[in-house]
């Protein structure tokens, strides 16, 4: 029993953080927003160079064959940087789903391209209305049929074969699309129970990736607000010396800090695909979103009117928090899922406390 990352995992997180701080500062994010796609192929290539895009790819396709425990800290950094690129969609969800369901030929066609930074993926699930960053995904992995019925299937559809309806949303870092498409035998890569299992796992991977980013965003918001409160003076002293400011930020930090172990445990249950996976992922998503939403409200209140402006960077993270809060299941959706397991099915053991002797 050990709830701890390895030195290697922590070192990689550090290097990703340094990379993103350099390559992804707010000035560049704002420039990206003004481009048509809002995304940068050059930057995508740099993510590949850093090894991020190959993290979950099987080694036979040039990847690193890592799992969610390796990935979760990197996704936290991606949230902290408010990165505008479909890393979660591609690395956390797309590649594992393709590796699980795609034919050897399909894998060999696409995964090496992802690893090399030459392709991106995205994922659409019937439980969520939008496909994120579909406009820059080269291959879309899509859910057809219902949740459990006999029609259920996973399809892999090149972007050129679907119609994308852009649904402009509040967050420039994650564009939303409705995807109009026709399932066909040529695009189908899994059916039946295999598809059902793979889709449920992909949904949880997407929710986990959102949770990880939300934790990073929440911490960033607290740090931004703490920094501002140290600089900004009113009544002749830094506003951060007022207890009201101190206590509201401290309260947020409590929620952020206690979302972390929940997130890390969820990453482990996904990596190991344990029986607790769904409850653990829902817990992580709900706790991370709560921390991030509280952080957004509080950071804005600490900043005051200046935080309400376009030119101050705060809104970059607030919008990311609001968007990811409702992506891949809202807090209430996830708490309801936990409720079914804990209150109705009695299927959710307590960590440690319920362990079998």
């Amino acid at each position, binding site marked *: 029993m050990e709830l701890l990352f390895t030195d290697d995992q922590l070192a990689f997180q550090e290097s990703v953080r340094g990379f993103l701080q350099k390559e992804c500062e707010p000035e560049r994010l704002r420039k990206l927003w003004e481009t048509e796609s809002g995304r940068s192929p050059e930057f995508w290539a740099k993510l590949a160079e850093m090894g991020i895009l190959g993290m979950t790819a099987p080694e036979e396709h040039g990847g690193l064959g890592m799992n969610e425990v390796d990935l979760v800290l990197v996704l936290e950094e991606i949230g902290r940087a408010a990165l505008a690129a479909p890393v979660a969609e591609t690395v956390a969800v797309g590649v594992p789903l393709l590796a699980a369901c795609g034919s050897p030929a399909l894998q060999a066609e696409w995964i090496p391209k992802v690893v090399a930074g030459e392709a991106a993926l995205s994922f659409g699930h019937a439980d*969520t*209305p*939008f496909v994120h960053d579909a406009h820059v995904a080269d291959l879309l992995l899509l859910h057809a049929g219902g949740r459990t019925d006999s029609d259920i299937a996973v399809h892999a559809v090149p972007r050129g074969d679907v119609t994308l*309806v*852009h*649904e*402009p*949303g*509040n*967050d420039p870092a994650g564009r*939303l699309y*409705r995807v109009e498409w026709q399932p066909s035998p040529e695009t189908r890569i899994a059916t039946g129970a295999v598809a059902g299992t793979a889709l449920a796992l992909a949904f949880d991977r997407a929710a986990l990736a959102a949770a990880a980013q939300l934790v990073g965003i929440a911490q960033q918001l607290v740090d931004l607000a703490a920094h501002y409160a140290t600089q900004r*003076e*009113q*009544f002749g002293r830094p*506003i951060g010396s*007022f207890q*009201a*400011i101190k206590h509201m930020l401290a309260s947020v930090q409590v929620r952020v800090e206690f979302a972390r172990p929940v997130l890390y445990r969820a990453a482990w249950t996904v990596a190991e695909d344990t029986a607790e996976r769904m409850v653990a992922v829902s817990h992580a998503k709900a706790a991370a979103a709560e921390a991030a939403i509280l952080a957004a*409200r509080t950071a*804005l*209140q600490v900043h*005051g*009117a200046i935080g*309400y*402006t*376009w*030119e101050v960077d*705060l*809104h970059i993270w*607030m*919008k990311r928090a*609001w*968007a990811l809060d*409702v*992506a891949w299941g*809202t807090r*209430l*959706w996830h708490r*309801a899922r936990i409720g079914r397991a804990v209150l109705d099915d009695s299927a959710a053991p307590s960590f440690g406390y319920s362990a079998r002797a």
Partner: protein
Amino acid sequence: MDLTFTPEEDAFRREARGWLEAHVPAKPLPSMDTAEGFAAHRAWERTLNDGRWAMVSWPEAYGGRGVNLIEWLIFEEEYFRAGAPGRVNQNGIFLLGPTLMDYGTDAQKARHLPRMAAGEDVWAQGWSEPNAGSDMAAIRATARLDGDHYVLNGQKTWCSRAVFADWIFCIFRTDPESQRHRGLTFILVPLDAEGVKVRPIAQLDGETGFAEVFFDDVHVPVENRLGDEGAGWRVAMATAGFERGLMLRSPARFQSTAARLVALYKDEAEQADPALRDAVVRAWMDAEAYCLNTYRTVSRLMSGGSIGAEASLNKIFWSELDVHMHETALSLLEARGQLLPHAPDAGNVGRWLDGYLFSLAGPIYAGTNEIQRNVIAERLLGLPKA
């Protein structure tokens, strides 16, 4: 205590409702933070004024109807029920207008009030400076008396409407030796005066409801001073005073939001999480409570009472209520709630996101809620200053 409306009050309501039904534009006007929308809202102010509904609580001499505060509440209820446009000149009508009536010279009243009423002059307000936000007395912008003119220098910020407005009212430091809230003077400035520069401030939704206003040796005649030199703080406090603040946050605004939330809940009830039902009920309750408290306050004012630090209780209550209502709506809308109003699937729900962003400003502007809590603790509960 009598919580029935009198026949006279009912008649006033009927008259207002009838006029509004006949005149409120069928389609919402474009945002008043655009040139086109600003013009449309200015035109609406003229329409209101033509019907003598622009400033119902002003004396008839200044173009109003001289109604009492209960009737003013009734008018507001009808105004929000009718879905009428936002008041582009609210800074003028509700803040500066009444202050002019109290502190203005006859010449100032004659010059400004009719044009304000008619929407010919739209007013911006200039309270804050970059380093004088919550600490409002830290004002640095100066006015130097030079013969029959003041020479203005410095900067104001968070000036709502200033991008398209005609005039702005501000306080300046006239005594360079003075500290804090002493030595300040209240001055009216035409925004087209030489040396005035207005820089729009983009909000987080990209709109420009605010501006910074820079004063570089701006000359305004002494007649533009409102109240005495050095009395600016007192005049400003009167402007920001409770009754006028009340007019900017009439209960009907929050009750109309609550009514929309109830309607949204009914639409979504089948798939909504059961926990949201209680949140909707609480929103409705608090909107009612805000309304009832306003009727109580207004009753007290009409019986000769006055209101002081209680205004801080109000500020906290309405601003938290507004955030809570919009959060609840967004929870009901789930992922759809993040769509901008023009998104294909947004239907008519995109307004909630806009409203949420606006609601988040509530606990900040007009004195942050932290400042309000200090006021409540020290002035109402008698706790010692730090």
